[in-house]
């Protein structure tokens, strides 16, 4: 088993994949925290399904699919913002409408992909083998940008997540920060779609946060814990999947769900 691991990690792409996974596991819970607390998890789904449509469009047009994913997922959150004005108070409706558009577009567009039909599949469930150096650089760059922006605005993001009305009265630019948050979500989802897979990314946004919320002692502490959980899930999932020859993204998500269930049971017993 050790031999298998050593052999696998002598490959360049495995090292790069692990590094990318580690960085994505920082940004996913970082963005997941305000999204979950604001009960906007549906936006992650809408963005990821639209990202898939972007992948399909990229493959058809001969543009890098990750760039396509970023473009479409940003367009998706812009669409949600537009729909939200029509259904103010029901942001889920807006998210579901955009998600439906994303799924529909993916289904139609994928019919036109002539070469490499397996590619769209690899974006759905993630892939570590197919990642190019350019895509790794792009993912890294986007992730670092997400980390930097959410660090700079962490006070504002907390204030708005906790109480939008009070934040408005304290003079914070609530609309701009909300929009920034949506944009960061779109970028995170698109950046992660390559390795983790568009269908899996929502889980990486939500599960580590859910686990951290069970034991967090403050907001800051919960954010830190959620990043630690995400790292544990993804790194252990990566190794387990390598040894057992499973799909990495699925393994990561299943480990996350298992840990969450164990925590819930332990906490229930404490009460």
């Amino acid at each position, binding site marked *: 088993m050790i031999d298998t691991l050593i052999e696998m990690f002598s490959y360049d792409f495995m090292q790069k994949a692990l590094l990318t996974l580690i960085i994505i596991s920082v940004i996913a819970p970082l963005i997941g925290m305000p999204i979950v607390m604001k009960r906007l998890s549906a936006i992650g789904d809408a963005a990821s399904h639209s990202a898939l449509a972007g992948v399909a469009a990229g493959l058809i047009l001969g543009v890098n699919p990750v760039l396509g994913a970023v473009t479409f997922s940003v367009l998706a959150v812009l669409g949600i913002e537009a729909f939200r004005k029509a259904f103010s108070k029901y942001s889920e409706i807006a998210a579901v409408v955009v998600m439906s558009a994303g799924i529909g577009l993916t289904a139609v567009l994928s019919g036109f992909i002539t070469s490499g039909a397996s590619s769209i599949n690899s974006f759905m469930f993630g892939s570590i083998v197919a990642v190019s150096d350019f895509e790794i650089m792009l993912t890294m760059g986007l992730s670092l940008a997400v980390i930097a922006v959410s660090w700079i605005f962490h006070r504002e993001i907390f*204030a708005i997540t906790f109480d939008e*009305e009070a934040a408005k009265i304290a003079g*914070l630019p609530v609309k701009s920060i909300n929009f920034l948050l949506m944009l960061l979500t779109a970028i995170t989802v698109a950046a992660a779609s390559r390795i983790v897979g568009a269908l899996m990314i929502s889980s990486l946004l939500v599960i580590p946060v859910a686990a951290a919320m069970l034991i967090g002692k*403050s*907001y800051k502490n919960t954010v830190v814990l959620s990043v630690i959980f995400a790292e544990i899930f993804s790194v252990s999932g990566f190794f387990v999947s390598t040894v057992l020859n499973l799909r990495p993204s699925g393994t990561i998500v299943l480990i996350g769900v298992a840990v969450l269930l164990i925590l819930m049971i332990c906490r229930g017993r404490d009460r």
Partner: protein
Amino acid sequence: MKEILIVKNLSFKYSDVPVLRDVSFSVEKGDFLGIIGSNGAGKSTLIKLILGLLPYKSGEILLHGADVRTRKPNVGYVSQKVASFNTGFPATVREVVLSGLKKPSLFRYTAEDMRRLGECLERVGMTEYGNKLIGRLSGGQQQRAFIARALIGGSDILILDEPTVGIDAMSVKSIMELISEINRSGVTVIMTNHDTPTLVEAADKLLIFCEHGNAELVKKNELSLAEMSELYAGKRRHHHD
């Protein structure tokens, strides 16, 4: 300039529903203004207008001498949060109170921020609860934390919209005492409350909503005993509920 808030001929409609009609009053520095009116009279609407959260077309609201539509007013605000907020939210009292700072300093809290935090927690009697999760506290303690958040911005005016709804009777009394104490320290207080007698007791000026969106300002010490007991009995509230 003693007047901290001037409302002149203010009228307001939600699309077609008129709520306020030609309301005029002023509040001086250090006043405790109680707003009294039945359900749907327009109390919360008036407060949102003063806070600059709703646009209005007719009349004028001057806070600290400036139009609230053009300059974001510097006020401390406490809403009826206890009844509505998400108790699963993992945030400590400290984190919540600090989020009330007007201009969050980048990256780190300054020594001044921390000094204010300590001072505000002490003022509301929550010093020992700074590191507790807010969702695990009682309604009264949560509301104290929200009052501290409203104070940390350093505003000289505190606006409270039904701050005691959803809080047990014992805590209501001590919260009202706390608000009076804050008022005595020089902060102008404007508040609404469903419990009219308690509010009449604490306030020194009353804005009484009548029917049809009119409201009149009375000073408590100018009220006759008969008018006073009418107020206590809630007769002037025009109950629709």
